[in-house]
């Protein structure tokens, strides 16, 4: 480990921590025995244990085996249904749907989505929709693409801020999905108020209040996770959308990425997080890739921060311009579009225990998670999530005293409140007689003292 890994404590301040992942190796095109990559923009791990890397600069898609040491295929030419050949131009996104074994490619330079089988035979080509909802003066520049189980296709477009374009499995445009909200800043409120008085002409000349568009997304079962890389935007940087397009994270006040943007003196700017890619691993953890710092922030299902991995420096595990993140098993793959490498991170022993504990914890097995969380605390006493886990475990077990202790250490007053309630009930139950006796003796003394005093006063 060559860079210092950290985590956040209960007051959202950075504290040193054990690393959950360490960089194993960094793989370039040369290492794999193919032409060097040029501007990698996406990576996808498919159900057939093959990695697909979108090599934008070389206009191709490279398939790599699951051990990440052999190229198993290069897609640069595709066969159209009418047997003519077509090539990609600056492809930027790929998705492989397990249900129909199809490859969905965002062919940005050609303004189209290609749906092809795994042999390179194109099944369908989706171009700019001819619909009233899609404003015709806007270009169609697909950035990222995913498809759900039913074959519906979602496309992130470069210049569209109204959400991802949604296509049915037949390729018909059905609308937009999951637009970001406008952040309620003071300026927007002011504009809203002045709008009441200002003429329409003036209004039309003002910069409009539009939210930033989606940068990337990933699908996990029924939910689509989107991220937005605008570093000026604070709301909706990471969203979990259900089928109706509602954001499940919208109520919870979670900051994704670093809590306090660090001031970088060498570049004279604030390092505000810009989440460029998001990936949901098999066990449901959310990996957010931060462009500014080159770090991967891993969250569990409930958005509790697990690990912060990676850095932006010239070393193994350090990045220039990160572009995409993908996970498979206990490994993380991060692509760098400047150095044109894919860095493989593997889980440490510590990471393994945390993942085990957090999986048990998130499935509601608090008692079973108690032991692994305690193991985590042995290795890293700064790990806040472990204190919460231990506190909940003890609470479920009925060991209220320990639960209170750990809830205090975790700064979780909800758990403390419950544990205290239990502890108080136990205390009253076991000491009921003593408490009654104390109350009665005190009452007796007070009453007799008053009588004594009154009698003396009357005698005076």
């Amino acid at each position, binding site marked *: 480990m060559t860079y210092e890994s950290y985590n956040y404590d209960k*007051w959202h*301040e950075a504290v040193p921590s054990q690393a959950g992942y360490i960089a194993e190796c960094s793989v370039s095109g040369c290492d794999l025995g193919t032409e060097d990559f040029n501007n990698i923009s996406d990576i996808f791990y498919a159900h057939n244990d093959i990695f697909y890397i979108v090599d934008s600069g070389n206009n191709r898609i490279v398939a790599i085996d699951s051990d990440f040491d052999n190229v198993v295929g290069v897609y640069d030419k595709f066969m159209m249904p009418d047997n003519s050949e077509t090539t990609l131009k600056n492809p930027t996104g790929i998705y492989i749907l397990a249900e129909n074994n199809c490859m969905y490619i965002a062919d940005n330079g050609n303004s189209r989505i290609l749906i092809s089988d795994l042999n390179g035979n194109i099944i369908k080509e989706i171009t700019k929709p001819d619909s009233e909802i899609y404003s015709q003066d806007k270009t169609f520049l697909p950035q990222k693409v995913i498809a759900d189980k039913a074959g519906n296709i979602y496309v992130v477009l470069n210049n569209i801020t109204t959400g991802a374009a949604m296509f049915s499995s037949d390729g018909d445009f059905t609308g937009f999905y999951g637009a970001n909200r406008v952040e309620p800043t003071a300026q927007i409120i002011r504009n809203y108020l002045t709008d009441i008085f200002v003429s329409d002409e003036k209004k039309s000349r003002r910069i409009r209040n539009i939210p930033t568009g989606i940068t990337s997304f990933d699908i996990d079962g029924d939910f689509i996770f989107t991220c937005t890389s605008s570093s000026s935007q604070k709301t909706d940087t990471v969203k979990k959308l259900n089928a109706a397009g509602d954001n499940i994270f919208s109520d919870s006040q979670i900051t994704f990425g670093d809590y306090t943007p660090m001031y970088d003196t060498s570049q004279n700017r604030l390092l505000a997080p810009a989440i460029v890619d998001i990936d949901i691993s098999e066990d449901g953890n959310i990996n957010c890739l931060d462009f500014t710092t080159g770090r991967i922030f891993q969250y569990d299902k409930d958005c509790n921060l697990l690990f912060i991995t990676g850095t932006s420096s010239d070393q193994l595990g350090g990045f220039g311009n990160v572009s995409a993140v993908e996970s498979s098993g206990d490994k993380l793959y991060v692509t760098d579009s400047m150095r044109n490498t894919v860095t493989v991170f593997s889980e440490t022993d510590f990471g393994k225990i945390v993942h085990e504990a957090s999986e048990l914890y998130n499935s509601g097995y608090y008692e079973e998670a108690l032991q692994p969380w305690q193991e985590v605390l042995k290795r890293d006493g700064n790990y806040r999530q472990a204190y919460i886990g231990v506190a909940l475990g003890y609470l479920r077990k009925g060991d209220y005293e320990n639960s*209170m202790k750990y*809830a*205090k250490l975790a*700064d979780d*007053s909800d758990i*403390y*409140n419950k544990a*205290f*309630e239990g502890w*108080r009930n136990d205390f009253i139950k076991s000491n009921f007689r003593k408490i009654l006796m104390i109350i009665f003796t005190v009452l007796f003394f007070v009453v007799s003292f008053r009588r004594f005093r009154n009698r003396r006063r009357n005698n005076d």
Partner: protein
Amino acid sequence: MIDLKPVQWVKHIAVHPFEGFENMRWKKSGSIKIAFFIVFLLFLSLIAKERFYGFQFHSSYDKTFNIIPFISGSIIIFTAWVIGNWSVCTLLDGEGTMKNICIYSAYALVPYIAQNFINTVLSHLLIRDEFVFMQAIEIIGVCWTALLLFSAVKSVHQYTFRKTVLAIILIMASIMIMFILLVLFLALIQQIYNFILTVYTEISYRVRV
């Protein structure tokens, strides 16, 4: 009529919000030492509320402890109130001296302080569902102190009801003005300090060369 020891007056006033201060004024009682002690207790109660509150209701930042907010929240505000009160009521034909204003106002704070301490203790015995009781105690304490403060201003200056209301509004305004001036003054001092510092640095560089 009533003959009470200095400490007993505190209790008498707390339980007689309307005629307590008048009685004390009639008897020419009230001790400045006790008044200062009450203000000190206010300071302690604020600290207790921040640091010794039950964890289920309030969690404090444990890494550092800054005592300045507690001093300004108790002693400085009280001083500002007394000075504002004195300066306003001197102009409004009030009869109170600075010492009496200080004593009467401090005595009026007792229910608020008691409320702080009682709630601090209760916060270790109750759970969140029972927070209403603490809230009720807090509301009662604050209202009681407000009533006593009103009564204190009324009787220390021998005002009518309407004049007291006017005086209290003016006192609030004077406190505001005092704080604004204070901030301005501090900003000015800082500017001057910076100026002197830069001049000093400049000179020290020249002298060395």
